[in-house]
């Protein structure tokens, strides 16, 4: 059963990701990305990271992607015409990406212990523990990230402001 679920969500994630790359209309790409994120959230659950899974849906799929969809709807821009598409990127890019994938995969197989099996329920990331670590071990990064997001907030407001 676990295998079935893994392959289901993994295939869904890859399928949506491929769709993201191939679609012409940004809203379809956005929908695909939401699909990827939902599949990944399920995979996180299977890895015992339920807090991260929930946050993935709330923050990534439920907030960031809503922003994307909102902007696409707001600009209401249709499909972009394909302009002076770089031939180099087409001919060299795809093979190079495949090379990249192959090298990463080989490294993963070299390094990752092949006998390590993921079992559901073996490891359970409790939310309370994450909170404790976040506010003890990682307090400084947490604060820095808070300031970062504040800066981003101000920046976004400045950018989107209409001059009166």
């Amino acid at each position: 059963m676990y295998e079935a679920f893994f392959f289901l969500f993994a295939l869904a994630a890859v399928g949506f990701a491929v769709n993201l790359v191939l679609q012409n209309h940004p809203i379809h790409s956005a929908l695909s990305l939401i699909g990827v994120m939902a599949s990944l959230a399920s995979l996180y659950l299977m890895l015992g990271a339920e807090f991260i899974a929930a946050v993935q849906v709330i923050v990534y799929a439920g907030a960031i992607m809503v922003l994307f969809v909102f902007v696409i709807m707001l600009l209401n821009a249709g499909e972009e015409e394909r302009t002076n598409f770089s031939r180099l990127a087409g001919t060299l890019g795809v093979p190079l990406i495949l090379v990249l994938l192959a090298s990463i995969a080989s490294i993963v197989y070299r390094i990752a212990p092949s006998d390590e099996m993921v079992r559901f329920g073996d490891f359970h990331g409790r939310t309370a523990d994450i909170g404790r670590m976040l506010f003890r071990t990682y307090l400084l990064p947490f604060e820095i990230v808070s300031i970062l997001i504040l800066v981003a907030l101000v920046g976004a407001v400045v950018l989107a402001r209409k001059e009166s």
Partner: protein
Amino acid sequence: MIPLSYYLVLSAILFCLGVAGFLLQRNIVTIFMSVELMLNAVNLSFVALSYHFRLLDGQIFVFFVMVVAAAEAAVGLGIIIAVFRNRESLNVDRMNLIKW
């Protein structure tokens, strides 16, 4: 039972698809979404390795990545709106004012 490496390879596949989208797409919003896809792929690695080491640090890193992604989305989309207001287009090839 699934070997851990499956998760890592899946992460690699998603990352490479993100790179492909980044290179192949001309729409700046889709390019931006490809970046998000890459971030998501890396997050999967983090969570998988967090499982491997039975340590929560990986998950906390994912948390930070999400916060950074949120900040990036806010500013990035703001820039996209500003650019679109100026140039009436989302095509990156049309944004070539400082290209020589």
